[in-house]
């Protein structure tokens, strides 16, 4: 089975091509069925192929499809190892559920078929990203998910804000990609190869400390772009312009975790560069806190979740930066479940509220949408870190590992803890504003539970969010054993939580913090809506005006510079010199023009005079 791992990619690819060319003809809802079916098949295939790893057996397996760029030694090759298996399962699993959900959500959209085309393209790209056996294929997937993200964010392109958001996402990602690209140059110039096996195996002898730090920091820039970390996170909140299933799949569960995957995959390099690893963790921790504070003040339900995603990704960065790769990927998996669930739930709410996204106009939806409420409640408690739900296990493991590193890492642990409290608080705020209290609906809005196609995925994700944590509990480290071969292969050392009683104490502390967050939230939002106005709220709601700052410090000057170059320098100076040369020649010619009298005889005089002059000259020299 592992030999034909490319089948996992092939099926969604077939779906993509079929929908691309015949999407209109296939029509609604069959386009949705086709798209979903291909992803489900891919999921099943991946599940079968991953079976060996569950027992802790099964070798990492490379499948070379064909040579891509021979002189770079770059093949299109897939790597099937526990890490890629875990990622593949998340991508296809959550992807399949969201495909099914979208059949209901996108019902009636005139570009229904096109939506599934893009979704399938995304699945293909994401699979390339996680399955690639070298940085080249990874980069292909990396860029193609950017493309699908662009297409899906601006899916409703007639809305200018959606089109702008798509472009912004792609461009900001590209900024990160430059870092990635330069990292690839460094890797290639050092190793002469981009294949994981070559690079990771020889990294200790080939890379000097400085080089390793440079490579890993550049990779971090790429990862920060894709995973929306400081300072490149600005595209993700805007990306909420896309249809909600897209936000769930791409901008919460899968694509944005690519940066985490990249760092985990390059663990062998980060191990050589402890400074970079610490920077990764610090960036993660700061992002987690920063985004959580912004999430507190958002009015739009999806924007709360967007900032929450940024914050949770920060957690994952903190984990992989602390060399807790298993914990990071573990949180990636659980987060994929509960965040996808939150987004899909939010989508269900938005759907019910006739496309209203402002939480101030919701409230009291609990009884109208029982399934949505129940499943979202699970996700709410899971993300808050309440045991025994999924989020508790993964988040707690991260915090424990970071704590165990000791020294300055304790500061990161504190930040993580504060973030956990904030997370519980803003999620409680979201739940209470949406589902509790008195209805504040706009006129004519009749909320109703969503159709089964939409609630079924909610339930499935609800189950996953509730129980996924049990794949890796302190007394049964199933997931850790599953992933270990990936890291053992290149002798990457994993950081572990402390032994003994300490982790239990830490767990109790973090649960208490979470409960406190929930309690404060409940107290504040349990009754009537507090008015959230004033300077501080404005600042938070607008994300501290970071977008404006970027606008005035980067975008505007850049545009000005371009204008100066184009209309002053290029048109006036460079072209001015060219045209000036022309003018000078013309002026010179003008001075000579009177000589051309148009009278043949005057020319004759000239010729004759010339001839006589020559004659005299020859004679005066005494012969020719």
């Amino acid at each position, binding site marked *: 089975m592992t030999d034909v791992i490319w089948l996992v990619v092939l099926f969604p690819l077939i779906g993509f091509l079929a929908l691309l060319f015949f999407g209109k003809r296939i029509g609604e809802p069959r386009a949705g069925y086709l798209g979903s079916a291909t992803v489900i098949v891919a999921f099943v295939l991946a599940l079968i192929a991953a079976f060996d790893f569950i027992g802790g057996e099964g070798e990492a397996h490379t499948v070379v499809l064909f040579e891509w760029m021979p002189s770079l030694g770059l093949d299109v090759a897939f790597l099937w190892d526990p890490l890629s298996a875990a990622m593949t399962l998340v991508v296809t699993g959550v992807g399949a559920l969201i495909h099914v959900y979208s059949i209901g959500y996108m019902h009636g959209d005139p570009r229904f078929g096109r939506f599934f085309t893009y979704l399938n393209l995304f699945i293909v790209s994401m699979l390339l990203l996680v399955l690639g056996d070298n940085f080249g294929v990874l980069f292909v997937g990396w860029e193609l998910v950017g493309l699908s993200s662009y297409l899906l964010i601006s899916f409703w392109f*007639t809305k*200018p804000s959606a089109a702008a958001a798509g472009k912004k996402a*792609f461009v900001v990602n*590209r900024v990160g990609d430059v870092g990635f690209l330069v990292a690839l140059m460094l890797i290639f110039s050092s190793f002469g190869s981009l294949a994981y096996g070559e690079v990771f195996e020889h990294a200790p002898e080939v890379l000097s400390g400085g080089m390793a730090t440079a490579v890993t920091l550049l990779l971090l820039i790429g990862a920060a772009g894709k995973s929306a970390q400081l300072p490149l996170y600005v595209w993700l909140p805007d990306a909420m312009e896309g249809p909600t299933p897209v936000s769930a799949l791409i901008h919460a569960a899968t694509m944005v975790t690519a940066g985490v995957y990249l760092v985990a995959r390059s663990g062998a390099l980060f191990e050589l560069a402890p400074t970079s690893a610490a920077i990764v963790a610090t960036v993660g921790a700061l992002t987690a806190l920063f985004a959580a504070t912004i999430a507190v003040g958002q009015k739009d339900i999806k924007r709360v979740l967007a900032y929450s995603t940024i914050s949770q990704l920060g957690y994952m960065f903190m984990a992989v930066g602390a060399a807790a790769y298993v914990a990071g990927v573990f949180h990636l998996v659980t987060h994929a479940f509960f965040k996808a669930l939150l987004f899909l739930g939010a989508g269900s709410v938005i759907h019910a509220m006739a496309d209203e996204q402002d939480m101030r106009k919701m409230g009291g939806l609990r009884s109208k949408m029982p399934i949505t409420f129940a499943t979202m409640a699970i996700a709410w408690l899971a993300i808050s870190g309440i045991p025994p739900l999924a989020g508790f296990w993964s988040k707690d493991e991260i915090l424990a590992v970071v704590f165990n590193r000791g020294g300055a890492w304790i500061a990161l642990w504190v930040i993580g803890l504060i973030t956990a409290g904030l997370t519980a608080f803003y999620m409680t705020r979201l739940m209470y504003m949406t589902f509790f209290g008195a209805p504040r609906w706009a006129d004519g809005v009749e909320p109703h539970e969503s159709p089964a196609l939409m609630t079924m995925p909610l339930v499935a994700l609800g189950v996953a969010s509730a129980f996924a944590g049990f794949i890796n509990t302190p007394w049964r480290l199933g997931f850790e054993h599953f992933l270990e071969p990936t890291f053992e292969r290149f002798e990457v050392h994993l950081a572990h939580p402390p032994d003994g009683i300490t982790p239990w104490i830490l767990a109790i502390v973090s649960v208490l913090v979470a409960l406190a967050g929930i309690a404060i939230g409940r107290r504040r939002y349990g009754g009537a809506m507090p008015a959230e106005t004033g300077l501080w709220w404005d600042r938070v709601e607008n994300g501290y005006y970071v977008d404006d700052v970027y606008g005035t410090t980067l975008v505007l000057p850049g545009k000005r510079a371009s204008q100066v170059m184009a209309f002053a320098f290029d048109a006036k100076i*460079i072209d001015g010199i060219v045209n000036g040369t*022309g003018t000078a020649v013309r002026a010179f010619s003008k001075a000579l023009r009177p000589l051309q009298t148009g009278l043949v005889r005057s020319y004759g005089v000239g010729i004759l005079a010339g001839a006589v002059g020559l004659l005299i000259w020859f004679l005066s020299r005494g012969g020719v």
Partner: protein
Amino acid sequence: MDFPVIALLVLLPSGIAVVIAALPQRTRSLWFPLAIALSALPLAVAGYIMWEFDAVDGGFQFTQDISWFGPWDIAWNVGIDGISLFLVVLTTILFPISLAASMNITEKVKLYIVSLLILETGLLGVFVSLDLLLFFVFFEIVLVPMYFLIGLWGSKNRVYAAVKFFLYTAFGSALLLSGIIGLAVMARDQLGGFSFDFNTLLTLEISSSAQLWFFLAFAIAFAIKVPLFPLHTWLPDAHTEAPTAGSVLLAGVLLKLGTYGLLRFNLTLFPDASVRLAPWLATLAVIGIIYGAAVAIVQPDVKRLVAYSSVSHLGFIVLGIFAMTTQGLQGGVIQMINHGLTTGALFLLVGMIYERRHTRLISDYGGLAKVMPIYAGFFLFTAFASIGLPGLNGFIGEFKVLLGAYLRFPVLAIIAALGVVLAAVYLLWAYERMFTGPVTNEANAGLRDLNGREIAVLVPMAVLIVFLGIYPKPALDRIEPAVDRILDRIEAVTDYEVPEYGSTADIAGGGE
């Protein structure tokens, strides 16, 4: 001697031109279809050449050497290697497409078709010539039909653009000719007789100071063609004013005359000067990459935008060439093909919308994706190819150039990498303004989407764009021996060593 297939290839378009010219006026409606059908013949010949081409041989194949003017050793000396092979194929592909895209031309149809076909002969001749004078003749032949294409069938400011184009390049040609004659004279001094034969001239011993002057004469001529910053200002004007087919061919093939010349002649004939001046040219190339992209961002005219994007892309090619590494050169060559396809396709697309609305201003459009979804799809696809999205062709060239350039000029390569951000900015912003949002201008509301002919013109380009992006190996395999041969020569006659990967690690580890 084998069948003179290159002669057939080069002369076939002119033969077709004669046939078309001989047709009587009443067959007017048949001229275009016939020309398109017949222009498939050179393509077929090029296909045959590619089929028969020996991929492992880095030298010239299908060579033919017939004396033209014996006393000065001027000859019909032609041959194809891995570098020219794909440029020839690209040329023969673009001509049927350009003809098919020009069927809206109604004035002086016959002259138009004949000009295009003569242009094809000139371009093919340039790529196969192994005699410098022959090369120069073809190089100049190209100018004439192009001048008429811009000057006769162009838009409003066409005469200015045509004259500017002609004078600019003629200036370069003068330098080129003096350089060629200088080499021939040097051959007379050293070998006892004039020679314009490329292989003979390679045996000359040129002092390094003389190389410098020769290099500059050739390089300026070619840099104008490329065009390399700061000699680029003819390009936006020429592109903007030229008819669609003119722009396609200008971007697709004509600009490659410059990069091809730099690669074929500058690197091999003046290796010493190339090694010494490479940093300067690479710097200019990188300035071009960033500058072209930055200027493209704010262009209000979509055709000018694409023109400036060419300046940026061609910068990548020149950077690859003067990186003087296998990857860089290979990337440069493949990027020539890629740029021909993607920018050619972009100009086709711009031409299609211009035919409908007769405006090139981005601000006159908006919301087109709603009205013309197929057109929007093709445009976005091509834009992403141009941005260098992996999986499409543009990435292959850029990636190889960057990796190759990094080995020799790390800082320049890193700066060049910033160009990929700017490419995304100018193309996606233009797309946003032209295609998304509501339809604001009434005139755009009723536009019809692409018709069958237009789709047929675009599909071959799209197929090649995808194919080269996913499976570039056939092309790369054939290019590699040829560029290695050039590098071998440079290494043989200078003390330059092609930097190998792993070198930075050696330095870091103390070396050996």
